[in-house]
């Protein structure tokens, strides 16, 4: 009962956000406008300043329900029809059959157990694409009020706490508060695929990586990075470094972005 009320309040507020935002910026439904900038990522790309152009990002991760619609429309991504080159054995393993989730799964939970190939195709079929690591990290460094909250201990502690909590992917989307850009769930729900997830070479031997990329640390030091800040980012790069494009995981979902056409 309470659950239902919560849901309806939640849906209404989501609906309101859509209306306000669509009126305000005239942008794509369920997406939010991200104003690009130059910034220094924590780790990767030689830690030089990178430039992110303006783009739009999905407010929420793609849900189970949305993915059900997708496979209905594009049968080649159904569990039994998918090509084994593009998915591993655990692809949609939490589904009953080609078109239905198991009873234990919620329609408004983020879709997981999807490969990079599947996620990439999903976005392209919507006229969108996967975000790059730089884009994803750029939006994800915001907390609720600041667009770059990385030096705040509270921001880092919150992220680290999530990294430590098992089984958070059972939650529905939108339960965490939105960040300063108006985007939900970048932290606190599931890991997310990025277009170039494997562009930072992590060998699996983290100590060696530290050595190899010594200048990365100097880079972070120059923006006064705390240990906490490094650690949170480290963990994201570690998980990305462990993935292959056909892998699917219980804690790994995705969202899409869209270029702004001038």
């Amino acid at each position, binding site marked *: 009962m309470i659950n239902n009320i919560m849901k309806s309040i939640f849906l209404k507020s989501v609906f309101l956000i859509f209306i306000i935002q669509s009126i305000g910026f005239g942008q794509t439904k369920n997406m939010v406008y991200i104003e690009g900038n130059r910034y220094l990522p924590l780790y990767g790309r030689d830690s030089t300043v990178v430039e992110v152009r303006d783009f739009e990002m999905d407010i929420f991760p793609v849900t189970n329900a949305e993915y059900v619609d997708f496979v209905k429309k594009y049968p080649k991504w159904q569990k039994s029809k998918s090509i084994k080159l593009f998915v591993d054995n*655990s692809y949609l393993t939490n589904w009953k059959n080609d078109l239905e989730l198991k009873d234990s799964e919620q329609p408004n939970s983020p879709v997981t157990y999807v490969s990079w190939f599947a996620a990439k195709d999903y976005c392209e079929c919507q006229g969108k694409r996967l975000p790059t690591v730089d884009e994803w990290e750029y939006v994800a460094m915001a907390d609720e009020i600041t667009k770059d909250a990385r030096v705040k201990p509270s921001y880092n*502690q919150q992220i*680290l*706490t999530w*990294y*430590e*909590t*098992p*089984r*958070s992917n059972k939650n529905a989307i939108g339960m965490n508060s939105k960040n300063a850009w108006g985007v939900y769930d970048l932290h606190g729900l599931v*890991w997310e695929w990025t277009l170039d997830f494997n562009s930072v070479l*992590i*060998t*699996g*031997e*983290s*100590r*060696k*990586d*530290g050595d190899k990329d010594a200048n990365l640390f100097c880079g972070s030091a120059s923006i006064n990075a705390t*240990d*906490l800040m*490094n*650690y949170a980012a*480290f*963990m994201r*790069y*570690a*998980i990305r*470094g*462990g*993935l292959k494009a056909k*892998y*699917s*995981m*219980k*804690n790994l979902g995705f969202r899409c972005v869209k270029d702004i056409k001038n």
Partner: protein
Amino acid sequence: MMCLLSSCFDKQEKIIENAADISVGSYEMMAELTSPPNVPTPVGKRRAKKLIVKMEILEKESEMTDGVTYVYWTFGGTVPGSFIRTRVGDEVEFHLQNHPDNKLPHNIDLHAVTGPGGGAESSFVVPGHEKVFSFKTLNPGLYVYHCATAPVGMHIANGMYGLILVEPEGGLPIVDKEYYIMQGDFYTKGANGERGLQPFDMQKAVDEKADYVVFNGKVGALTGDNAITANVGETVRLFVGNGGPGLVSSFHVIGEIFDKVNIEGGDLINENVQTTLIPAGGAAIIEFRVDVPGSYILVDHSIFRAFNKGALGVLNVVGEEDKKIYSGEIRDDIYLPEGPGIQSMPTTNEIAASEIPAKSFEEQMEFGKQTYMQTCFACHQADGQGVPNAFPPLAKSDYLNADVDRAISAVVNGLTGEITVNGKKYNSVMTRQMLSSDEVANVMTYVYNSWGNSKKVVTKAMVDKVKSKK
């Protein structure tokens, strides 16, 4: 004839000088893995084989001490991880399985591996996957393994370490009892004893200010019902490791002298050792014969860690007493030194800050038990039985039940000098305890309502009254 053959065979094998040349042929077996404090069966005379190890990584919430939980990251579901027992020349086929419910990628660096990263590079595995790699055990000894995924310190601090033993050909000499013990330091957001699920505190870990220093992953993993045991006359072998991540262990067993220690887990043997140093990421094999019955306390002799942070275990030895080796107390004479006898613990005003008062008798009992296990247990013991001739019993205690204000006073002001409890004389010192009035009321209510005592309920007001008399 049989005997002759086998000794010939032994000699033949010993000619092989380079362990890398020991052939495993087509012999294959599944490794027996055990959770602490148990160890697998000794290798004995078995030949070198292909040894298949299947190790599952589990991230799970579990108890740190009474009322406090922590999210541990584990090899095999325990801290320390499962014990792996091999012999020189084995070819270990290692399967590292990352459970799908886990959130993070992990790997394993075994100090017994010869090769870059100790296996870390080949075993980096995301949740829901399994990595397989293989290595040959070349050097005998006791080795630490641990996770080496970024951030390495955090993975170790959350419990990702264990021991792998490589026995020499023919095995270690057979002993009566073998146990697996590993020390680790933990860093929690709340201070030691603060209730609830405690997250990892990175800053404390960087500063190496541990809230808990424990054997086998939690306070009390080796005390009470979990104590390890031996019989008089038996030889005990302890495989002791130190996972760290931050602290070095001064491992000591109160009342025992180690007959033999394989220092740092290697070939060098030292004899007649009182305390052996175990580096973080290191281990030692310790052997001693137990001659006198009683309870032997295992500690990190950086002693505040033992009595205030949890690094305490118990070895219970049963059997016949031998008065020649240890007499027990012979006489109690009077000795009056100069100066005051009462010691007091430093006081702070922070004690009560985080306390939530108990709302019911049941909560008083629950919180009181937690305080008891953290503060009183070391001397008065789990069932209030005390320690003969040293610490008076609290169970069915006439002294306790006769005067509640006197009992409260002992806790809040300390107590020194001779007292008679249940007909036996004790002359010892109890320091005043650094507890809030609520905590004193809870712990005393717990004591009065346990072990056949008078079932009094002590309130905060009663404690405050005794405090104000001072």
